[in-house]
């Protein structure tokens, strides 16, 4: 029985990358949103500029399920290269919209799905150049879908008006292509299909945005002035969005000059160096990268940890190891980020799960980095960073001020306030610092990655070195108090619980509903940060079994829970998803049920023997 129904369906557009399909597909996605329907859009694209298969998946869910569903109700098959696979990807009972200009190979037919053929290439023959034909062909299938799925035509034309504002002569040919597709579909098929859209009012004041844009905007609001980066998928659009926002929001109106500086560095080593240099000198600064970049930045991250320099880094994770699958998603940098660098180093990690949280945690990252004088790494991923999400709107309180941490200014130094760079004067293990150039005779110190004592002096003395290293460990305890607390997402006193973070959140919410329908209740805790606070360990201790869900092979979060909290490994059950596509509710439900079934078999077998 097909899964899709009114306002609950998944469509997938199969295209060739570099053919302008992205604008047609985003038009389609936004049309559902404008009809008041929650959507999740996932772009599954190759590491390539032109000519390879790319897919854009839109899930429409009135129920608000915005994780990836996994199965597909309707495929728009526009790519001959992937045609066979695309036919195979349609769920039984589903539909395939394809170009019928050339007849379909009978061997390709499937009896359990409906083939909807329209002569798209013929519809765009009036355009003289190939590029235009490709572009309008894409708009034609959007038009056909408007008939098949009952998308309000006014919504589509309204979106075209907005898009081509200032380039009005592009509107008419686009509308023409939409109409051609729509009319062809209306003439050929019994429209609409059972999977169709109907206007609702379920998105409220929600916005459509990517996590990378949200992080970048958070950096603007946090007051970051220096950004340094090296291009790497999937983090590039974060740095570029920062530049875009700054150009609009940060140019001094009087002088026309910039209240920001962005350096596209020669590599990631340099990018993080620029950030550390700027932060040392009192500016808020950040870099954005992905796993390979974190590897390259590791040496400098150790310096920032040991010399205690605030550093904000966004790790938009992708599938590793090595180059891995650069355009696929994973949560596989937890260990390499948490313990980046040689020697005893640990870093604060934050785990946003949605664009609004990307914004909020980006701002928080700067406050934490300044307060703790240490690197803070925001762990996003490709799915969150590059895909368009339905998000709660961004919020800002105008009374909010940045927390710049323990910095002595000129007047405090002048007044004779004692200053030793690495001395813990008030028990939180965080020392005071000064910015260069503050006072003519007080407050200067030498920053170094070599051994130093609590006064900031070079040392090779074991006791003095160790005293400082122990304070750094205590500072991490302070960090555990200051980082955002985990969120209890479901609490019913169940025997089993589940721990997860980041982009597992939406599929997990859906899975919890699905499991509840099958009579399985789980308590659910979502992590927002590392170091883990006591609540996390208490959650594990108070549940017989805790599923730990993560999108990597080696159960990295599981390792951290065992190492940092001394948890009992027998209690923790890892559910791992690491194929490079976002985890689905279906996978989570199946995995939980399988585990519970096998545990029941086990205990039944144990009771019988």
């Amino acid at each position, binding site marked *: 029985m097909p899964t899709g129904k009114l306002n609950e369906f998944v469509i997938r557009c199969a295209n060739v990358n570099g053919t302008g399909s992205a604008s047609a597909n985003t038009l389609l996605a936004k049309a559902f949103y404008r009809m008041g329907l929650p959507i999740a859009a996932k772009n599954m694209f190759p590491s390539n500029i032109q000519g390879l298969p790319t897919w854009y998946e839109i899930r429409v869910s009135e129920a608000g399920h915005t994780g990836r569903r996994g199965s597909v109700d309707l495929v728009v098959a526009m790519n001959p290269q992937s045609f066979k696979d695309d036919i195979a990807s349609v769920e039984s009972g589903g539909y395939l919209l394809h170009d019928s200009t050339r007849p379909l190979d009978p061997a390709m037919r499937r009896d359990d799905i409906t083939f909807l053929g329209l002569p798209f290439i013929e519809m765009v023959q009036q355009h003289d150049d190939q590029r235009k034909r490709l572009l309008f062909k894409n708009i034609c299938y959007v038009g056909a879908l408007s008939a098949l799925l009952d998308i309000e035509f006014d919504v589509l034309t309204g979106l075209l008006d907005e898009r081509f504002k200032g380039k009005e002569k592009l509107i008419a040919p686009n509308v023409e292509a939409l109409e051609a597709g729509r009319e062809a579909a209306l003439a050929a098929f019994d429209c609409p299909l059972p999977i169709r859209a109907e206007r609702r009012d379920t998105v409220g004041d929600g916005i459509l945005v990517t996590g990378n844009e949200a992080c970048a905007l958070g950096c603007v609001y946090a007051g970051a002035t220096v950004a340094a980066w090296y291009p790497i998928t999937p983090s590039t659009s974060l740095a570029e969005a920062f530049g875009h926002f700054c150009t609009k929001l940060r140019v001094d109106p009087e002088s026309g000059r910039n209240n920001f500086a962005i350096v596209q560095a020669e590599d990631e080593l340099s990018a993080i160096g620029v950030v550390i240099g700027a932060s040392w000198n009192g500016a808020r600064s950040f870099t954005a990268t992905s796993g390979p970049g974190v590897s390259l930045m590791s040496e400098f991250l150790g310096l920032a940890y040991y010399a205690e320099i605030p550093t904000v880094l966004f790790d938009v994770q992708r599938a590793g190891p090595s180059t891995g699958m650069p355009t696929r998603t994973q949560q596989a940098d937890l260990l390499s980020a948490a313990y980046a660098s040689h020697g005893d180093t640990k870093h604060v990690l934050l785990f946003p799960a949605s664009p609004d949280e990307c914004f909020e945690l980006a701002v928080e990252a700067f406050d934490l980095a300044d307060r703790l004088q240490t690197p803070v790494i925001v762990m996003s991923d490709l799915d969150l960073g590059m895909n368009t999400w339905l998000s709660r709107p961004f919020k800002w309180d105008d009374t909010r*001020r940045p927390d710049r941490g323990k910095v002595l200014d000129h007047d405090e130094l002048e007044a004779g306030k004692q200053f030793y760079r690495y001395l813990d004067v008030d028990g939180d293990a965080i020392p005071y610092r000064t910015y260069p150039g503050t006072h003519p005779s007080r407050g200067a110190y030498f920053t170094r990655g070599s051994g130093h004592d609590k006064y900031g002096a070079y040392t090779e003395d074991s006791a003095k070195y160790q005293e400082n290293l122990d304070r750094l460990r205590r500072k991490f305890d302070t960090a555990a108090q200051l980082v955002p607390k985990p969120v209890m997402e479901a609490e019913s006193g169940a025997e089993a619980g589940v721990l997860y973070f980041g982009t597992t959140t939406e599929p997990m919410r859906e899975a919890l509903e699905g499991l509840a329908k099958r009579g399985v209740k789980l308590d659910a805790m979502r992590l927002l940060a590392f170091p883990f606070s006591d609540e996390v360990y208490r959650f594990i201790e108070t549940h017989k079994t805790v599923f730990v869900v993560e999108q990597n092979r080696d159960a990295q979060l599981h390792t951290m829970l065992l190492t940092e909290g001394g948890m009992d490994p027998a209690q923790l059950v890892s559910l791992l998803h690491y194929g490079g596509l976002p985890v689905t509710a279906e996978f989570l439900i199946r995995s939980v049920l399988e585990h519970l079934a096998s545990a029941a078999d086990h205990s039944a077998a144990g009771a019988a023997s």
Partner: protein
Amino acid sequence: MTWIAKPAVHHPALPKNTLGLTRRDYEGKISTLCAGCGHDSISAAIIEACFELELPPHRIAKLSGIGCSAKTPTYFLGAAHGFNGVHGRMPSLATGANLANRELVYIGVSGDGDTASIGLGQFVHAIRRGINMLYMVENNGTYGLTKGQFSATADEGSVSKGGETNRYPPIDLARLALDMGAGFVARSFSGDKEQLVPIIRAALEYPGFAFIDCLSPCVTFNNHEGSTKSYAYIREHEFQATDLVPPREEITVSYGAGERMAVTLHDGTQLQLRKLAEDYDPGDRKSALDLIESHRRRGEIVTGLLYLDSSHEDMHARLNTVEQPLNAVSAETLCPGAAELENINAKLR
């Protein structure tokens, strides 16, 4: 190396500059480098230049990488903040620091291993960006802290203390700096204070990337017969191309027959230069490159201020940043506020 602490009491008759500071106020901790190390002479020259220029010490930031050279910022300008980073990465730290506060004076000290090997990439990109800083390479052709391996600036055929012959051609950092577009390129010698102090002064005044390749013999590992970076070898093979004339000193005939020229930089700074080489124009990059190459073929090392671009643009000019240091722009100015965020939300619907 010594463990003797410097006396805290200054001689009352020590000369003071108009800030009321003596040379001692520009000093740092006592050096722990080997006695006779060229690097200590460079530290002394930096102290002298900063004293003469009457720079407030706390408005200077000192940065370095790793190696013997990297230790030296501890030995000068004790009232300035210092940053001893990681190997070969001083240029990126200096980039960030300078972006955060354009008002401080930046002195980056590096070595030939730090710049010509592990940090070569950062070095050339720092030049491309045009950071307003003095970038000093204390060049001794050897890895001192790891006991005498050849560095990438060691000349082909130069012999190590252990008797090994270097088989690779050297990287000439002055030529590289010229090629990469540095606005100020000089080569000097730690053993020639008369030449070095005015060059450092000019570099500190220069409103852009000022590079000094300062030959600085390693007395422990690279000062023997067969080394081309020894005191003796450099003295015998040096060819001085230019001479910087201290601005307050009257130019007299005793300076010799060389051609005098005054250069006004775009920020108004004036430099007086006496040219000692014929058919050479220190304002022309090609001419400077030709001079270095033609003397290299004769086995000579050209020193002096080799190239000066009077219209050089620094990083802040390229990035069009505000005059105010970015670390001092108020949070109110930087944060667009709640009303603007509502506009942004609206555009995302």
